[in-house]
């Protein structure tokens, strides 16, 4: 059984009061997410990522198409008990404390009082808010609200967790913590579907990604395969100008910066280049793979979309 199955979701918005105009938010989207995988939904701002998540959560209605979550119709209220959702830049009732808020959401998710009492303190500790349970949310920073948001999304131990830009607006430490949290959810066997435009996060976390642009799906693939497809060049940095001239037979561009020289070579010529540096008594500083990143794949798909 698939965790998420989107079957031709389309969304068209009508704008304007007198002169109504149609604006396409999403064009016939077909997508499958396997159980237990971390699925990244990539795209620039306005690509349709949030629209897709809002459609799946029943916050807006599709113009066409339907979806299944854990094999059931996505509109079925019973499905929602097994689903967690973190909206983009979440905002919660600021008159409540995290304990009260999570208790409220727990009740709405059908958790019993003993379950809520057992889970909420543990969860607050897990997201790093152990000492903040009785502080009103109006006093929370953006990063702390994001932690509360993640806590409410997993409070009822859902099988599928949808996260809309979970790292957006966070500092590097916050991003790292959210990243670790997502990885821990994956270890627990949960399916995670998250949208982001931060490609390094997607590359580090996702098993598969989909690229969306202009409301249209541009590509779907396994991250490790996508990055290896584009892989094949290495960057070499060494010290010693004696190797510069002979190296030009292996690599076209060599850049000199003071005592250091930098160039890139194809994987097939890497060993020859290393042998050359050795024979020329050059001091090797670093060898790193270049290209082959998710960013390349992403930009390639966006480029195809623009053509």
């Amino acid at each position: 059984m698939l965790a998420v199955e989107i079957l031709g979701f389309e969304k068209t918005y009508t704008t304007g009061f007198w002169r109504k105009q149609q604006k396409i938010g999403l064009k016939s989207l077909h997508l499958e997410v396997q159980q237990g995988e971390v699925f990244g939904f990539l795209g620039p701002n306005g690509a349709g990522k949030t629209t897709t998540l809002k459609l799946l959560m029943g916050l807006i209605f599709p113009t066409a198409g339907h979806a299944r979550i854990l094999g059931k119709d996505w509109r079925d209220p019973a499905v929602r008990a097994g689903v967690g959702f973190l909206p983009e830049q979440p905002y919660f009732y600021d008159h409540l404390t995290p304990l009260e808020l999570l208790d409220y959401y727990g009740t709405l998710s059908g958790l019993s009082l003993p379950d809520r009492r057992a889970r909420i303190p543990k969860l607050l500790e897990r997201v790093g808010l152990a000492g903040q349970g009785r502080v009103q949310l109006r006093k929370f920073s953006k990063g702390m609200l994001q932690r509360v948001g993640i806590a409410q999304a997993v409070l009822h131990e859902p099988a599928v967790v949808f996260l809309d830009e979970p790292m957006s607006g966070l500092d590097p430490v916050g991003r790292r913590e959210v990243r670790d949290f997502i990885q821990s959810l994956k270890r627990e066997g949960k399916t995670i579907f998250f949208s982001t435009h931060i490609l390094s996060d997607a590359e580090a976390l996702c098993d598969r990604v989909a690229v969306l642009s202009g409301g249209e799906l541009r590509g779907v693939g396994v991250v490790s395969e996508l990055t290896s497809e584009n892989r094949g060049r290495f960057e070499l940095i060494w010290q010693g100008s004696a190797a510069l001239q002979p190296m030009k037979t292996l690599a076209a561009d060599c850049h000199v910066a003071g005592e250091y020289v930098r160039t890139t070579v194809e994987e097939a010529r890497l060993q020859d280049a290393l042998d050359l540096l050795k024979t020329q008594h050059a001091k090797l500083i670093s060898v790193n793979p270049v290209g082959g990143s998710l960013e390349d794949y992403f930009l390639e798909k966006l480029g195809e979309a623009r053509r």
Partner: protein
Amino acid sequence: MTRRIGAIAFNTFREAVRDRVLYNIVFFVLLLVASAPLLGKISAGVQRVLLVNLSLSAISIFGVIISIFVGISLVSKEIERRTLYPVLSRPVGRGEFILGKYMGLAATLIVNTVAMSVGFYLAMFIMMRQFTGADANILIAVYFLLLEFLVVIGLALLFSSFSTPLLSAIFALSMFVAGTFAADLREFARMAHGPQRWLASSISYLIPNLASLNVITRVSHDQFISAALVGYNSLYAMLYSAVTVCGAILIFSRKDLK
């Protein structure tokens, strides 16, 4: 379902309390304290009539203001701040959400009205030094005021389900004002002829008959309120509220949350 509606209602009530909505009770008490010396200078009979009129009118005004201005923001504020997203992504129906919101504000107004009524009875005891059987009659007027609030909350919810907060406030206020003249409009419809009669009659049945719920003057003069009127008003207010809440649910259930 009941548990979810109850949780939403409790959260709405808690929000109203923490947003200091109930602070109007303090103003009410201050109003009574400030007016007591003035009323003291008038003869005992008139003093009671004035106190009842003043207090019940104040309860009505405060209650209607809360019903309209909190009522119109019940849903729109949740949409605007997106606090609704984590609620509706759970197994919560949109109808349950509207019902919970309605009941939460109704509970707020019940607490508000009960607290004000206690204040009013205290003021009356201080002024008159005793309670009479006729004073119990005033509770009927308080009950009718509560029914009036239930109708107005329903209207505010209905308008806010398809309109902006400002327009919703204007619509709800207009309906409230028109509703207080519902009896006059019905009388006019009775006397009119042709399409005019049909139009006036339709409008008079569309707007809430709030005139029937206002017995403040009657109770202040110890006039008898029949059990039939209590029954009729209870049924009418509940039906009218049910229709407006159902309308709000129907519209909200089809609404895209931006």
